[in-house]
């Protein structure tokens, strides 16, 4: 198989962290780690791939003490499988990226999130410990398996979203949350971008505590979903209060089919946008007209499918006043790293120094990161 259009010379599937370490210690070529391969387009294609390192063999849930609300699991464990194992204890890892079969390592590497980030945050908020294998085969851990811990640098943050370019994540520990007892969604129509902003703001500036507020947007109108997940009495009262605040909407037992899915199909250019939350209407207006967008309406993150020929530089310039960025998740053709990630910030020199320290020979996921790192 190819990886983001690059043909690996060799594919390996180690079964233990020790085997990953041996591989990196005993070889010198470029290595690109991959879980289920659901997000290979989320970073630029690798400059080379001598070894495609599939992490699916690292599939053990190594510790779960329900009373501590903590789980330790290897990088190749699939999120869905982990959730199935936690559910009987009334627990969940509160991450909901929609990619089917995504592994924990892949979710960390790509920093994937979903609608419930509004309540629970993202990988950086839930990952409490991590073990990686470095470019020279060193096995190193950071963090631990307690939710509160400030000993040493928090390298888990650095590995999150690094696409394996600093080290191969082999094990992860996570803070868990209780599964909610009940859920209700409020679904409301939205007639203009300005209105989308107003409605999102009415929820954001209220004392309501939704787990997600999602907007589906295309052709100048859309649908807003406010999801409440708590005890029965709370979701009933809060959904009624939300309808009152919005001045519209109906309750639904479940979310619409589009909820939490990334928009777009084959041939689309799919983007991940981040911006100041209040800029939502201006971001919607900046997208080219045929765009289909799903926004986490109160957090400042959206996913947009835009036509293949969209002028990314112009779009990025339009988002810049809102501290905005647009990163390509899927492209119909090959893109340069610069087009993939956008311009580099003033901290890029520092990012390069970090990469050079962790991977002096540039063998891990070469060229995948911002600025071609």
């Amino acid at each position, binding site marked *: 198989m190819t990886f983001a259009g690059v043909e690996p010379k060799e594919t390996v599937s180690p079964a233990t962290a020790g085997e990953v370490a041996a591989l990196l210690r005993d070889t010198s070529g470029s290595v690109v780690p991959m879980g289920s391969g659901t997000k290979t387009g989320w970073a630029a294609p690798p400059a080379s791939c001598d070894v495609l390192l599939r992490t699916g063999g690292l599939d053990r849930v190594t510790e779960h*003490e329900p*009373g501590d*609300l903590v789980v330790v699991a290897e990088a190749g464990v699939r999120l869905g499988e982990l959730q199935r194992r936690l559910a009987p204890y*009334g627990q969940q890892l509160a991450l909901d990226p929609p990619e089917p079969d995504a592994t924990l390592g892949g979710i960390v590497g790509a*920093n994937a999130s979903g609608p419930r980030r509004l309540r629970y*945050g993202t990988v*950086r908020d839930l990952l409490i410990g991590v073990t990686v294998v*470095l470019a020279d085969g*060193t*096995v*190193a*851990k*950071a963090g*631990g*398996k*307690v*939710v*509160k*811990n*400030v*000993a*040493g*640098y*928090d*390298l*888990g*943050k*650095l590995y*999150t*979203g*690094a696409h394996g370019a600093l080290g191969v994540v082999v094990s992860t520990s996570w803070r868990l*949350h*209780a599964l909610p007892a009940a859920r209700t969604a409020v679904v409301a129509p939205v007639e203009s971008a300005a209105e989308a902003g107003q409605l999102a703001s009415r929820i*954001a*500036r209220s*004392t309501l*505590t939704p787990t997600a507020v999602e907007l589906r947007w295309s052709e100048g109108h859309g649908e807003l979903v406010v999801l409440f997940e708590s*005890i029965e*009495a*709370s979701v009933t*009262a*809060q959904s009624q209060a939300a309808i009152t605040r919005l001045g519209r909407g109906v309750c639904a037992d479940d979310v619409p089919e589009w909820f939490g899915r990334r928009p777009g199909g084959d041939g689309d250019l799919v983007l991940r946008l*981040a911006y*100041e*939350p*209040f800029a939502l209407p201006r971001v919607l207006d900046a997208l080219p007209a045929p765009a289909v967008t799903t926004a986490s309406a109160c957090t*400042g993150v959206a996913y947009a499918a835009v036509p293949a020929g969209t002028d990314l530089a112009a779009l990025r310039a339009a988002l810049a006043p*809102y*501290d905005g*960025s647009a990163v390509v998740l899927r492209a119909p053709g090959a893109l340069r790293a610069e087009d993939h*990630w956008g311009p580099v*910030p*003033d901290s890029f020199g*520092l*990012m390069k*120094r*970090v990469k050079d*320290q962790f991977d002096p020979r540039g063998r891990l996921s070469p060229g995948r990161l*911002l*600025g071609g790192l």
Partner: protein
Amino acid sequence: MNQQQHAPVPPDTGGPVHDPVRAERLAARLRAALGPGKVLSDPAQLRTYECDGLAVYRVRPAVAVLAGERDDVVRTVRICAEEGVPFVARGSGTGLSGGAVPVADGVLIVLSRLRRILDVDPDNARVRVEPGVINLWVTRDAAPHGQAYAPDPSSQQVCSIGGNVAENAGGAHCLKYGFTVNHVTGAEVVLPDGDVVHLGGTAPEHPGLDLLGAFVGSEGTLGVTTEVTVRTIQAPETVRTMLVGFHTVEDAAGTVSDIIAAGILPAAIEMMDALAVEAAEAAVQCGYPEGARAVLVVELDGPRVEVDALFTQVEEIAGRRHAFEIRIAADDAERALMWRGRKSAFAAVGRISPAYYVQDGVIPRTRLPDVLTEMGRLADEAGVRVANVFHAGDGNLHPLILFDDKQPGAAEAAEELGMAILDLCVDAGGSITGEHGVGLEKKGKMTRQFSADDLDTMQLVRCAFDPAGLANPGKQFPTPRLCGERPGVRTAADTHDPALGEVF
């Protein structure tokens, strides 16, 4: 020193001799760059800055710079970089692990005059501040908009946001809301070579490596922050607080476990044992239940209907665990009193002991009963009294080790016990620090929690940010290898600890 929190044993050092000629030359250069009135080099004036909240570690810097604006910090760091002089940033100086203790012959950069709130943006739920701004001021300025800044260390009336960022400060409410790192979206940072970079920003995420995530909690070893953007939260519709008295510590710990097992995530669950309660009563007359072996403060917040239902459930859980008194705060004044007892507990211990020493360890929550039993055994063996205050919801212990500093050997025994308790935490699968940081105090314990490879890997970050090792050297890590040195060759272990110079 009496009735003041401190670590008992001054570090052993044969530090370098203060070099007055070099110090005066450095001060002159800084004065020329910053103007007069911002550079202190008179030993008498420098005394104020010799220590932070962990008063036993005292080092006099060569120079202290009282930065009045951002560019003072940039100029100072550039001069330090050119001269190869180490520097330490200091906020309010309330840290409890010695993280802001100066370096002898180095520069202390005092940020407490950088205290402007630059922007309050309720629509985006962001507040942008200078590093010397006091934690509580952020909530004060966000409150008119119905918002609040969640991290609430007990010192929140005096501690600074810059210090909070350095230490990744927590607080009683981080069980539900997370720590500083979960609430900082951006920082302007002066790197140790004097370059200024912007990490993160106002958007929730940014392309590229999450350097901000690594910077928060780096205890001043990666640079100095000159501006911080934090996220605010909506203040909850309702807050309800109860104080629960138990006849045994086990019942209190069991109640904590049962609350969590029921799927309830309180805003805070705090626990105090009999000795801590006695001290708090003596200090602030907070009216805690008499005769309790353990007290819990449980706070729920959120939508009223949800909080009311869960609050009743918590009462039932506590009742099943034989709570003998459940007191519910009827109004804000009563709630404030319940918290006053808890938040004043450290200082209050000074009422019942000539001196004391605070530790900060973390254990998996389920290990609480057996770790407490073992701690009690160690304390008895050592003949030392220990008062316990915990953020019980997340397993963060704050044992307060009481001793009489007039007794020969008592301080050493207290410190020894503190370190044994940390070993207990690590052996239980926990951490040597949950929120106070490693600083000077616990850097020697890092090897208990992390392997040499783990620590060398963390050092890679240090070498990327600060290859010359000038930013707060000698803190957080035990004698790291030098940048560029091959792993495993630890020549630095033989050299003098740069963090420690003159010790009084």
